[in-house]
């Protein structure tokens, strides 16, 4: 995969990703990897309140949501993103049956630990779908 070239050809500008992840090391690693794959980091939030503030400022095109933030569900963040029409993917250590919160809607759900390439694919898929829906 050649993320940089592909990304540059597909989009006029880099997509800005908000990382909502309470595990600092994972967030840090995601940042590095996503930059390598041609994304721009809009911000990193380890707690729900911080995430909600960042979403309210509408600085991102897409978000990665950890379903559980230090024992707190990130469903309110999902609801806020949905309200703004910002697409997102959900990442969680819980099995699919465990993350049944309706707020996550039909967003793609990935299991931790997840492969970075699958995560990037999902981010691109929701972004493409979102852009397509805006053009209609």
């Amino acid at each position, binding site marked *: 995969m050649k993320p940089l070239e592909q990304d540059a050809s597909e989009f006029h500008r880099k997509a800005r990703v908000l990382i909502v992840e309470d595990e*600092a*090391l994972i967030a840090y690693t995601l940042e590095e990897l996503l930059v390598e794959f041609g994304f721009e980091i809009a911000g990193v939030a380890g*707690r729900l309140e911080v995430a909600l503030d960042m979403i309210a400022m509408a600085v991102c095109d897409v978000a990665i949501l950890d379903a559980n933030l230090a024992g707190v569900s990130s469903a309110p963040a999902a609801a806020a993103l949905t309200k703004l029409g910002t697409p997102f993917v959900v990442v969680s*250590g819980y099995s699919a049956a*465990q993350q049944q919160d309706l707020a996550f809607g039909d967003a793609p759900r990935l*299991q931790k630990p997840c492969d970075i390439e699958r995560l990037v694919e999902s981010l691109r898929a929701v972004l493409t779908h979102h852009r397509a829906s805006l053009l209609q």
Partner: protein
Amino acid sequence: MTESMCPDSGMEALVIENSRLNMRLLEAEETLRAIRSDEVDALVVQSAFGPKLYTLQGLDAETLRFRGDMLAQVSDALIAVGSEDRIIYLNAAAEKLYGFTQSEALGRPLDQIYGLQWPRPGDEEKAMTSLQELGEWRGESLHIRRDHVTLNIESSITILRDEKGIPSGRLEVIRDITERKRHEHKVLISEVRYRRLFETAHDGILIIDPATRQIIDANPFMTQMLGYSHDQLVGKELFEIGLLRDEEASQQMVSELKRSGQVRYENLPLERKGGGRQDVEVVANLYEENDRSVIQCNIRDISERRRSEEHVEMLMAEVNHRAKNLLAVVQAVAYQTAKQGDPATLVTRLSERINGLSVGQDLLVKNQWYGVDVADLVTAQLAHFKDLIGTRVVLAGPAVRLTAEAAQAIGMALHELATNAAKYGALSSQIGLVTIGWHLTSGDGARFEMQWTETGGPLVTVPTRKGFGHSVIGRLVDAAVQGKTEIKFEPKGVSWRLQAPVGNAVNLVGSKE
């Protein structure tokens, strides 16, 4: 007796009838004479108390035979005693019961035939009073045979009187009820035992009449479970106590029971009096009880079991979540470790970092995830240098319990600091010193503060490249506890300092402070 209708043969019939009547008259006169002259010794009359014998005087051959025939027929044992309680008569049944022949027994005192005992105190007195006042007694007693076997006896005793009405002896009609008593006793024991089971069971038990589908009995546990009294339950149908949906469901249960003998409901919501609900398991069985059938329903409160099942499910989910999260952390560590540093030492460096994570996990599990004591965390992460702790590695701080998240981040930082110190810093020489201190500040904006200070090691130079280790002790700790770290590469040694809001780093509930 035929009445003649034909006038021709009428006379002849009349003559025959007349002679019969004469004979009977003679017999009657003879009987009267015999009674008067004491020739009839006994007259046995059936009474409500069993056979009774009146008078017993004179023993001519004829009456003896007559009496013997009659009394021998009686299946109950009969014993008559005269003066001084000596046996004057016993029938075949009595011979058999006591193991004496008539010839052996006659003339013997009664107490040689059997020893008499009374089941309850006061029984003897009652019997004596009854005999004196009414001339008869009926009741239970114990007869001890000469072979020492004790018999349960139901007997009827009548006082025999002479022609002047003076008591001259007693007749006892004896029935051996030992078998019956034994059986009654068994039934009683069984009844007591099963009643006790019923009364003390920790399952609710309902007994239901299949014909009416109504409750006929309920044990105390059942009444407690439902909040109804026993009287309120009796007469109700199952749907009336919310155990089954409606009358139709109740009918279905009974027909299913009649078909298969057992019905089982794994999980029914039981409605308590007043509206509360309780999850129960119901097992109903149809039993034949003598000649009628009954339904026994065992109702078990499964709320405790469900709670524990839910708890286990919750724990499993949590374990799954934590394991996956940790694997994601390991994945990130692997990525970061692989990205920097010498490929030749990759496996060693990765395995050291994973060990560091593992040590932190042990501490968390030990404290049931209620955080980790700082001193324990430092000691565990510096396990390689445990011989130096107290001499060249000095720990100083109060008992403070870190949250699980803070413990993981600070633990990883301590691991990186120790690795660096061992390679380049104070622990790489024979004399360097590491001081690790922590404390809580009080008042507004209370903070958790921690310092790692190295002295006495080789001269320190500022690294040209900031690797993964640098991120771990810096921005990763900052992010985990929303704190601020400061790293200084001074020539005399490395120093690291962390300041974090108390609420983000310290488990205040679990803290010993």
